[in-house]
């Protein structure tokens, strides 16, 4: 996290932007008690991520730092913070909301570009190799039923997912 005196301009309505996003509705309830940080398996092994600090930055309006920084990608979605939060802030969901906004603005870590590509081409985020598909019979597993790729593509079109620019990411 940034040290030194805060000189960057803050975005006035970032908190409102987050509360109007799916998943981010509860962020303003946070009163910075730190329970989430102490519950976080990631925060315990690296100082590059601290959920309490991410929320703090967001509520202070430091939009750029939050959305272009690497911190929001380090949440492991274990939901321990959300379980323990005394204000019922949906912290893990808030992180999703922040990620959603970040990706729409072009901050896409490489791995997510790969997931998106898999989904759009095969309806699966982890493609299944032809080799393995053939091997199934050897093990006595039934043939894999075809995935509903067409349906997925239509859904992606309806939500605008297919219009997101997944160019190789700028995230740290």
């Amino acid at each position, binding site marked *: 996290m940034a040290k030194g005196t805060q000189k960057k301009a803050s975005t006035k309505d970032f908190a409102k932007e987050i509360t109007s996003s*799916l998943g981010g509705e509860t962020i303003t309830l946070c009163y910075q008690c730190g329970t989430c940080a102490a519950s976080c*398996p*990631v925060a315990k*092994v*690296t100082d*590059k*991520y601290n959920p309490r600090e991410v929320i703090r930055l967001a509520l202070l309006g430091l939009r750029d730092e939050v959305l272009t920084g690497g911190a929001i*990608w*380090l949440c*492991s*979605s*274990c*939901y*321990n913070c*959300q*379980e323990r939060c005394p204000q019922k802030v*949906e912290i*893990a*969901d808030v992180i*999703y*909301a922040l*990620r*959603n906004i970040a*990706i729409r603005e072009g901050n896409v*870590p490489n*791995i*997510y570009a790969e*997931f*998106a590509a898999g*989904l759009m081409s095969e*309806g*699966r*985020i*982890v*493609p*299944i*190799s032809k080799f*393995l598909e053939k*091997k*199934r019979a050897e*093990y*006595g*597993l*039934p043939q*894999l*039923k*075809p*995935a*509903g*790729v067409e*349906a*997925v593509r*239509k*859904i*992606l*079109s*309806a*939500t605008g*997912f297919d219009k*997101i620019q997944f160019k190789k990411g700028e995230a740290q």
Partner: protein
Amino acid sequence: MTSYALFLGCTIPARQPHYELAARKSLAKLGIELIDLDDMTCCAPPPLQSIDLETSLAIAAYNICLAEEADLNIVTLCTGCFESLAMANTLLKEKEELRERVNKILANVGKEFKGNKEVRHYLQVLMNDVGLNNLKKSVVKPLSKLKVAAFSGCHLLRPSTLLRFDDPERPKIFDNLIEALDAKSIWYRNKLKCCGGLLRGYADDVALAIARDKIVNASRSGADCISTLCPFCFLTLDLGQMLIKTTYKEEYNIPVIHYAELLSISLGVDPKELALDFHKVKLDPVLNKIG
């Protein structure tokens, strides 16, 4: 015979056919029919939710609609799929506004989420449809001396307000199911803590540090093996030990085995039929102990 629509997701068919194999064999022995439906897709787990929550909800709902149309409840093997589908199922059943929003999207593929089916993890099927007593009776090869470090992973339990699977602070179901096989589910430090699996591919060093913590704790407690439910956890802890060897220069050699595999073995399935060569840490110590 109780029938369920089997939801496989991506990771299991792509990387861990041994999990699927063990699950099919054990559930068949217990009288549960698994039906494979056409057109199922990715469940829309955290990596997709990170890209867009609305799309993820819609994709999850789409899969549930397939089961609704087939008049079947869904059973998942992967706990990630469980979290994604069960969470979507509950949210859409209980929040009218969200349901309307998602149904608008689903209209594009001719589907409508009705909310009349359940999403279950196979442990729930074992508890409720088979029952602990029947399970115990079906065990032909008790795992009597095996000390198991049970690790259900995060997404079986959390977020508990939506998943409602077990007490998130004092879960008992998984331990009870292990003990039903006559093994011992032992205590170890930070048993409920995340394995870090979802960080693989973005921050491998962080993911490994977290995984290592789990391996160390399980090892220190004297466990013979770690039992998992989630393919990510399996990968992180099994393959992870190879990476720990190269990165930290530490060897633990603690086998990681899916519950479905333990279950199959205890129900009398020959280990040779279980594709156990997918395990990186060899299972010989476990198999020897079981006898």
